[in-house]
């Protein structure tokens, strides 16, 4: 165990795999049990988004909206106006994809602490194809004043993030994934909204990752260590507000940055870090993510491979960047 209380052997073949959305479902149930103000609404995807646990425990505080995402978030605004803590969920492609203006006007400008839950984000949604693989949600939510944007790295962190969202007085967006991914943090691993965490300390290069890609970055760092490269991995579960201090502290030492995310690199985490560094500490940077294109049908591993979103691709990108400066 290191000071982040991560699993010691993250590449063990028997590592527990669980969809990030499951952690959200548990977190919502926990906070719903503890706080009567917590309510939930869903747009006809209650099981998929894992709201069903809450619904079963607290049916009187659950609202089925039907397939109507504009209504979903705006009803959320009305619930929050009456002092409720509303969690509203759908697939990220539809919410925030379908209802951005309602989120802007009735939640952000209106300053109502609605908790937006976008599940099935990224290409790892797989066979459903490009229509359902949301890649632009981080960019869409990040530009809205007042909005907090979260992308937890595994199901345990999603559980902690959900509990933290209920206590946060701002509008929040949390990005969840469909597929089972390794659970590599533990109950003791810290999580706080607005904080990024150095999961692997290093000196040669900074890899900043979010959501499902942090695990891939961690695996890449292990491979790189064997290659003689000392890479620092920063896990950035809060994309907004960005933890500038942690990122700058690292980049000032390494002078090189690679960002990794399962979404459009433009406007996403890559965009956020690029803006920060352009303002405060221009550094050599490379953004791994979707490069201005849509996904397609396939199994998740095929797609992650095709779009360059694996530990191997991160490893190669690090070598390429280090090679440049030789």
């Amino acid at each position, binding site marked *: 165990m290191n000071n982040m209380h991560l699993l010691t052997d993250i590449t063990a073949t028997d590592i527990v795999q669980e969809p990030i959305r499951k952690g959200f479902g548990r977190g919502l149930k926990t906070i719903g049990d503890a706080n009567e103000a917590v309510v939930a609404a869903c747009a006809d995807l209650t099981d998929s988004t894992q709201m069903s646990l809450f619904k079963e425990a607290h049916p009187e505080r659950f609202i089925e909206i039907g397939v109507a995402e504009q209504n979903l978030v705006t009803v959320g*605004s*009305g619930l929050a106006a009456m002092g409720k803590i509303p969690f509203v969920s759908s697939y990220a492609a539809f919410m925030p994809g379908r209802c951005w203006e*309602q989120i802007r006007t009735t939640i952000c400008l209106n300053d109502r602490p609605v908790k937006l839950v976008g599940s099935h984000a990224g290409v790892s949604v797989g066979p459903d194809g490009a229509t359902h693989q949301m890649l632009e949600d981080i960019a869409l939510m990040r530009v809205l004043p007042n909005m907090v944007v979260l992308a937890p790295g595994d199901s345990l962190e999603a559980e902690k993030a959900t509990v933290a969202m209920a206590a946060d007085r701002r509008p929040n967006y949390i990005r969840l994934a469909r597929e089972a991914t390794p659970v590599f943090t533990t109950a003791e691993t810290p999580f706080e909204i607005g904080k990024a965490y150095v999961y692997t300390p290093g000196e040669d290069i900074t890899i900043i990752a979010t959501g499902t890609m942090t695990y891939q970055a961690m695996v890449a760092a292990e491979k790189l260590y064997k290659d003689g490269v000392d890479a620092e991995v920063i896990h950035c579960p809060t994309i907004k507000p960005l933890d500038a201090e942690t990122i700058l502290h690292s980049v000032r030492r390494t002078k090189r940055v690679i960002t990794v995310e399962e979404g459009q690199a433009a406007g996403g985490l890559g965009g956020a870090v690029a803006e920060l560094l352009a303002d405060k500490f221009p550094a050599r940077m490379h953004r791994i993510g979707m490069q201005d294109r849509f996904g397609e049908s396939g199994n998740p591993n095929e797609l992650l491979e095709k779009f360059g979103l694996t530990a191997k691709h991160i490893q190669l990108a690090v070598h390429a960047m280090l090679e440049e400066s030789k």
Partner: protein
Amino acid sequence: MVTKLSLDALEKKANDIREDIIRMLEEAGSGHSAGPLGLADIVTALYFNVMDYDPKNPDWPERDIFLMSNGHCVPVQYAAMAHAGFFDRKELMTLRKYGSRLQGHPERTKLSGLENTSGPLGCGLSQACGMALAMRMDHVERKRWIYVVMGDGEQDEGNVWEAAMLAGKYKLSNIIAITDRNNIQIDGPTEEIMPLEDLKAKWEAFGWHVIEIDGNNIESVIDACSMAKAIENKPVMLIAHTVPGKGVEFMEYDFTWHGKPPNREEAKKALHELRTLGGKIRGEHE
């Protein structure tokens, strides 16, 4: 709590509010004329007879809720709020100006007493649904009322019908929605731009109890609200037929006044008309 006015006093109040609307818009140099004038009788009825609230304690937990979903008509709400004592009437002249709490479209976080931020159309009814569902969870459903004023052109928005369906499903009977049926929108008459009729049948098909009223008759607005409160298992839609630009003859029925303010000359003429009730009486201040 605000004092409930008699019918005579309400009619005078509506006229005073119309005068303020003309002055505000002329001073601002931009904004919407026809809608606010047409809505003056409805908003006067709500603020000075129908609703329970306390202008000195805008967050009073038992208050009724007023949502203006068609935020471009907010001058009529600002004027009513000033007359009700939420803030000084002098502040009305700051409408749309830099640093004003009276933003061009209503912003809740700027002005105490506003319940929502609106302007982009089609959201008020959804917010009302959220509020009504929260009130049901808190067991105050039959004690607090939510009044939502909507435009007719606004009902081109799909979001409106998503909310209509939800309110029907959950039988949110403490929502009293009021459609300002003035038949105009920015590009022209509603029935040319995007026909809404049969509007009554549409709302009924979505599970609403619908009452059609003369929205420029304060007594009929008050009566319809009383009737609406007696309906226990459905949300209620009042389709309020109004005259856009009501009270100022050269603005009445003319869709070109939807989105513009009067200039000095026009304002003077409008104020004269309002003070003399269209030439029927001699104005007090003439």
